[in-house]
Each structure stands twice: as structure tokens, then as C-alpha cells.
């Protein structure tokens, strides 16, 4: 085969769809046809493991070494110098060549290495070996250089293809997620209809049972049943209210506000409940205004839920500490209870909807608080101090500042 035919075929290999190894194998075979060598191996540079890894080899003689470290053998020397080189030794059996050891040279006396590189990177090495040394000639060297450049384009093409395949895999995944989210939305839609159909009759049941209570004295037979009916109805109402809030994310009505005010209002709502539980509320608020852009009603719901959750962890006594401060550009509100902490087994689940450890919990309080804070581009952190209590820390950006809480 003449030189131009080989060059042409190497060019075609760049566009071939076959696996890279097969194409490099073919390239090696072509090189052996054009130059008087007995073995051709192509090593690719693995930048993660920092080694040359054998990808293809053709020819006779002892098998090519599988890997060369970055400073091992002739490939290592190519790496160090950035360019190809020729080397020869006298005896066939030894492994010492030009002052270095290369076990791949056993059974050969002459080697030519070519760097597979372009202006930006080294991709690998072509390693040609011969039993008998031959004289170099300019035409052959220039043909080999051209061949090396073509092989580089085969390797680069493969890299681009791989990136392409990765991209289309990502795209397929994105599409799958989209379909999934459509399914979720359809489910949410269905749930919302069911919830509405349940809520109205439930209100009738609860409301009318409440009315019936007025006619049934405390000690009358059946009064116990009525109490149970109203109690359970209230529980279901709360659950349904929570589901509705989860399903319908109403648009935030953002306005300039002072976080201290919002949190204060939430605390006031629970004064009585705290007193009943024998819980002492400690307010440690900063004197500074905490400027925030927030949907006041939603934000209050978030803190209502955090405070209710904290109170529920304390039965007969305890301290609820609510503190606020400004930390650089972020507003920090801490809600700390002395309720003994969360069982570490459950720690990862507390923000999951419907997860609850309480007898009458809906499992929606913390997820709702979390969702609302997230929608305000804030974060909630949990510090679980087992045996002591839990501290929920809400962080929000100060008004007008992108403080990058949610990177």
C-alpha cells in the first residue's frame, strides 16, 4: 500500500463509527505497512491515573507492556520532553535502552516513539519497535508525523463523540424527569380534587357534631362518641389543610418587612399554649431592624409551624428560646426547644411530608415551614442536641442582597 493510500485510510478512520480500540488497531496495522517496524502499540494518556495505558497493539515479538507510569520507559520520556524520539540498544534480551529501563524493549533493538499531541494536550504515544535497526529517512519521518496527526484527530473525535453521548444521556434523563414531574402534577391535581370532595362533607360532620354537643350534656350516654367525632374531625381538617397548602403554592406576595415583627407575631399566637404546657418563652431579639422581603402571612405560617413543633416536644416544662440576629448579609432566626432532641434514627426524615413521631401530628408542619423558607430563597438548618433539645435555624437574605444561601 502506498503512502497516500495509508494517509487517506487514516483520515477515514476518524469518521468511522467503530470502537476506538478497533480503529487504533487498524491504524497500527497501517503504520506497520508503511514503515519497517515489527510491532506498533498505541498508548493513551490517562490524566486521572497519570499513566500511559495500552489501547491497541499489532505486530510480532513480546507483548506490549500494558501501562507506563508518567516517568517510566520510552513513553515516560515522551511525556517529559513533549516530543517523540528514537532509541536503540545492542542486545535483544536486555531492557536497558538509552539510559533507562523499558521492559517493553525485550526482544527488540530499535524503537521510535511519536507523541500524539496537538497544541493543547498530549493524548498518547505511538510506540514502534523493530528487531533490527533501520536507517531513518526524512520522507518516512514526515509520513509518520502526518499519520500521528491523523491518529490524534481520531482520538479527539472519539472524545467529542463521548461528550456528545454523555450530553444525550443527560438530555434523556432530563426528559424522563420532566415526564415524571408531569405525572406528579397529574397526581397532585387528582389529590386536590379528592381533598376538596372530602373537605366539605368533613366540615358538615364536624360542625354538626359540634352543634349536637350543645344538646347532649357532658354526662349523657353517647357524649363520649361525639367528643371523639369532633376531635377526629379537627385532626382530619388539619391534615387536609396541610395537603392543600402543599399542593397549591400560591404566588408569594412579597413586601418589605421586619423579621422581628413577623417572628414576634408568631410567638404571641403560642403564649397561651406555652403557659398551659408550663413552657417558658425566652425572646432574644436584636434591637436592629431585620429588613426582609417576605410574604408576611406565609412566613408567619412557617414560624407558627416551627414554634408549634418546638412546643409539642416539651410536655410539662421547658424553655422555648427564640432569637434573632443579623449575620453579615443574612438574617438568622433560631427556634430552640429543650425537649430532649430528635431520635437520631428519624433525623433525616423530619422534613419529609407525612412523617411524624407524634400521636396527633400531621407530619406536615416542618415540610411546610421548610417549603416556605425555601421559596423565600432561605435555608433551615437543624441542630439536634440529643438529650437537650433541637435548634432550628432559619437563614434569609437581607432585603435587596443576594447573599447566596442557596447556591
Amino acid at each position: 500500500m502506498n503512502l497516500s493510500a495509508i494517509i487517506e485510510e487514516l483520515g477515514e478512520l476518524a469518521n468511522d463509527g467503530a470502537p476506538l480500540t478497533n480503529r487504533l488497531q487498524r491504524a497500527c496495522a497501517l503504520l506497520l505497512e508503511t514503515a519497517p517496524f515489527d510491532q506498533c502499540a498505541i498508548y493513551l494518556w490517562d490524566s486521572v491515573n497519570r499513566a500511559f495505558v495500552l489501547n491497541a497493539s499489532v505486530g510480532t515479538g513480546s507483548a506490549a507492556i500494558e501501562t507506563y507510569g508518567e516517568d517510566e520507559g520510552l513513553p515516560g520520556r515522551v511525556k517529559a520532553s513533549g516530543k517523540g524520539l528514537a532509541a536503540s540498544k545492542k542486545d535483544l534480551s536486555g531492557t536497558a535502552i538509552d539510559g533507562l529501563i523499558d521492559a517493553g524493549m525485550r526482544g527488540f533493538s530499535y524503537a521510535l516513539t511519536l507523541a500524539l499531541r496537538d497544541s493543547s494536550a498530549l493524548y498518547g504515544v505511538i510506540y514502534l519497535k523493530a528487531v533490527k535497526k533501520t536507517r531513518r529517512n526524512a520522507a518516512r519521518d514526515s509520513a509518520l508525523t502526518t499519520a500521528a496527526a491523523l491518529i490524534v484527530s481520531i482520538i479527539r473525535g472519539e472524545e467529542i463523540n463521548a461528550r456528545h453521548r454523555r450530553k444525550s444521556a443527560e438530555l434523556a434523563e432530563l426528559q424522563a424527569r420532566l415526564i415524571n414531574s408531569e405525572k406528579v402534577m397529574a397526581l397532585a391535581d387528582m389529590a386536590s380534587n379528592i381533598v376538596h370532595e372530602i373537605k366539605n362533607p368533613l366540615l358538615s360532620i364536624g360542625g354538626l357534631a359540634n352543634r349536637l354537643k350543645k344538646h347532649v350534656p357532658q354526662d349523657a350516654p353517647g357524649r363520649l362518641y361525639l367528643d371523639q367525632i369532633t376531635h377526629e374531625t379537627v385532626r382530619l381538617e388539619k391534615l387536609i389543610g396541610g395537603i392543600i397548602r402543599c399542593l397549591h403554592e400560591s404566588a408569594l406576595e412579597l413586601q418589605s418587612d421586619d423579621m422581628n415583627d413577623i417572628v414576634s407575631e408568631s410567638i404571641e399566637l403560642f403564649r397561651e399554649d406555652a403557659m398551659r404546657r408550663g413552657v417558658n418563652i425566652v425572646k432574644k431579639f436584636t434591637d436592629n431592624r431585620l429588613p426582609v422581603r417576605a410574604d408576611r402571612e406565609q412566613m408567619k405560617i412557617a414560624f407558627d409551624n416551627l414554634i408549634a413543633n418546638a412546643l409539642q416536644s416539651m410536655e410539662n416544662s421547658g424553655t422555648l428560646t427564640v432569637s434573632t440576629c443579623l449575620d453579615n448579609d443574612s438574617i438568622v432566626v433560631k427556634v430552640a426547644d429543650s425537649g430532649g432532641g430528635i431520635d437520631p434514627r428519624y433525623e433525616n426524615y423530619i422534613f419529609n411530608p407525612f412523617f411524624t413521631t407524634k400521636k396527633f401530628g400531621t407530619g406536615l408542619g416542618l415540610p411546610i415551614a421548610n417549603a416556605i423558607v425555601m421559596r423565600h430563597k432561605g435555608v433551615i438548618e437543624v441542630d439536634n442536641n440529643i438529650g437537650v433539645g433541637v435548634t432550628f435555624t432559619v437563614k434569609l437574605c437581607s432585603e435587596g442582597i443576594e447573599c447566596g444561601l442557596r447556591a
Partner: protein
Amino acid sequence: MKKRILVVDDEEGLRLLYKEELEEAGWEVTLAASGEESLRRIEEGKIDLVLLDIKMPGMDGVEVLRHVKERWKDLPVVLCTAYPHYKHEFGTWASDAYVIKSSDLTELKQTLKDILGKKR
């Protein structure tokens, strides 16, 4: 004279509940089971306030509200629904109050008292 409240809700149980509770609280109550019926009742006169469910088959509460505000500008309307999110929707701004449905009618009754007390 006792104030008269028109209760509009397609749920029979809730109409019964509202009627009993509101009468007990000292108001007169007229019932309507649909949006269309509610407009006929208002035309008959003597209504001081409309308590309006939003989600109803046929003419829904938002549409009723529009008709009422066009024809009886000063008649107060309280919207009452299972959904908190309607609060943000266009068309419900014109109502005088917005109450989330609950089997506990305390909040509702307070709202009605506030509005009817203000009037005249």
C-alpha cells in the same frame, strides 16, 4: 331589626350547619344551593350580607361576586372556601372578607359581626 345573611353553598350539610349556627348567633338566614339561585334570592331583596362558597358547579362564587358587585355595589360579600390560595386570585379582591372553611365557625362569625356591625 335582625340582619339577614344569604348563605350560598352547594353542600347541603354545610347549608344546614351555617343556618343553625348563624341563627343561633342572632341573624336571619336565607339559603341558596347554587350561584344562579343566589342571584334570584338577592333580587327578592332584604339581604344584608352574602356568605359565598367559591367552588360550585354551574355559576361559581367568583362569578356571583362579579354580578353582585356590578348590581348591588354596597352589599357585602364574604368568600368562604376550602382553598387558601384563592386569596391571591384576581376576581376575589372585590370581596369584603375571605374566610377559610372550618368546622369551627368562630372566625367566620367574628368576621360577619365585624362587617355587619360596621354597616349603618
